[in-house]
């Protein structure tokens, strides 16, 4: 079985909106996959299904061997501990320093203080922010804040890193830097990466597998490097 598998997944919200229709897709361990589509195309729902923020109306979602739709509310944390999540709006705690923000993820899971420190510093070094451990989020640029968010997402050494429009608020140059960090995580740590984005430049430049969602339907699944060729054809 693949690392991530969606089989005939439908998601209809209570207001009657169909966000995903009969979606089936498999993603292998260590893959880097872009999910693209217009606003309200269903890509956010797709991402939310993976970390069990939403449950499918029908069909199956399997992540790392866990049947996501069958996880009870009280057990969702078990899935979340295997996943790192990066958001467009960073979701950092403003009253905590960079170090504390990253350490927060490990404190929440009950890790020992002496184990937390080396892991946090390692994660911050990977994103190039070791010098700013004492800074507060409001003292950092947007790109730096996003790096803190990435450090927090990977500090628990997750098997899967989900990025929901991580470059949405950043200028092209900073976006490039962020993408380099994410790509290095994929290469060095063999972390599976699923990234929802609007940014076609990034998608074209990085030449990864691309899933295109339109009105809740998976209209394209392009293998590594094929998406740009398809667009130009």
């Amino acid at each position, binding site marked *: 079985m693949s690392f991530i598998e969606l089989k005939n997944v439908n998601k209809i919200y209570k207001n009657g909106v169909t966000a995903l229709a009969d979606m089936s897709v498999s993603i292998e361990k260590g893959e880097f996959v872009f999910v693209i589509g217009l606003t309200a195309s269903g890509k956010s729902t797709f991402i939310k299904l993976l970390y069990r923020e939403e449950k499918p109306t029908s069909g199956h979602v399997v992540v790392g061997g866990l049947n996501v739709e069958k996880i009870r*509310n009280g057990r969702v944390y078990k899935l979340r501990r295997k996943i790192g999540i990066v958001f467009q709006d960073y979701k950092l705690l403003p009253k905590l320093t960079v170090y504390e923000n990253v350490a927060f993820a490990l404190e929440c899971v009950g890790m020992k203080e002496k184990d937390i420190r080396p892991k946090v510093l390692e994660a911050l070094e990977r994103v190039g922010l070791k010098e700013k451990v004492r800074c507060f989020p409001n003292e950092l640029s947007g790109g730096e804040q996003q790096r803190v968010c990435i450090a927090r997402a990977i500090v628990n050494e997750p098997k899967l890193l989900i990025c929901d429009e991580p470059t949405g608020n950043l200028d092209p140059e900073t976006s490039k830097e962020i993408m380099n960090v994410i790509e290095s995580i994929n290469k060095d740590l063999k972390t599976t990466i699923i990234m929802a984005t609007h940014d076609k430049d990034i998608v074209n430049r990085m030449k990864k597998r691309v899933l295109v969602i339109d009105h809740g339907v998976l209209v394209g699944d392009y293998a590594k490097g094929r998406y740009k060729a398809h667009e130009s054809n």
Partner: protein
Amino acid sequence: MKVIRIIGRSFRDSFKSISRNFSLSFASIMCTTITLILVAVAIVCAANIENATKIIEDELSIVVYLNKDVTAEQIENIKSDIKSQSNVASSTFKSKDEWKVELGDYSEDVGNILDYLDDNPLFDSFIVKVHDVDYLEDTAKYINDIDGVESVKYGEGMVENVISTFNVVEKIVIVAVITLILVTAFLISNTIKLTIINRKNEIEIMRLVGASNTSIKLPFLIEGFIIGIIGAIIPICITIYGYVILYSKMHGELFTNLVFLIKPYNFVFYVSLVLIVIGAIVGMLGSLKAVRKYLKI
């Protein structure tokens, strides 16, 4: 070990949250304080009313006057008949001669008059104490019908009025205590709700990074617990000092020298303990309600 770490962090986070959201916490502590003061007053009143009722009930007795011509054998029969009643706690025989001596001790004039008479005009009697004063009248009626009994006296009318008034007051006080406790829970729950809204971001991140529901809820429960306990401090001081002062000002009596107030020592500590337990439990329940409702976990 992991559990201890999570609890330790929850305590740290709770104190942090109380100090960071100081104005909210202060408001909540003040609400708890005010309601617990009222609860303390109500408890003190209820306990003293209960105590007074008990004193009055203990003093209550049925005086059974026997016929003039009653024989020793009949007296024995009447005694066993009275004792056969389940509501009868004790019955003591008091002869007319004993009454005469007692009256003579009470008033010299009455004693002289009684001495002047050839025949003792008083009656032999039984003093009957009952278990349950609610059935005092029934018991008195039963005894009145026993052969050889002249009449019974138990302060008809007045006794029932006093006891039923006390019962009503006691019930009102109990309802007041329960209402106040619910109000406190509601106020604490509302404050914690505001704190939760304030910390929604933090909670969302906790959930996303894989914090278990328990470790998310625990700091809020501890926060409610701490607020409840801090809120109980002033009411406890007021109870201890207030009651001691009240007791000495009233010379330990409740309006009349027949009914005493409960002695302050131990009593004030019991009330304090009750206040702290109410504060802590109500604080925790209030926050649990808010956490359940607003975290949907």
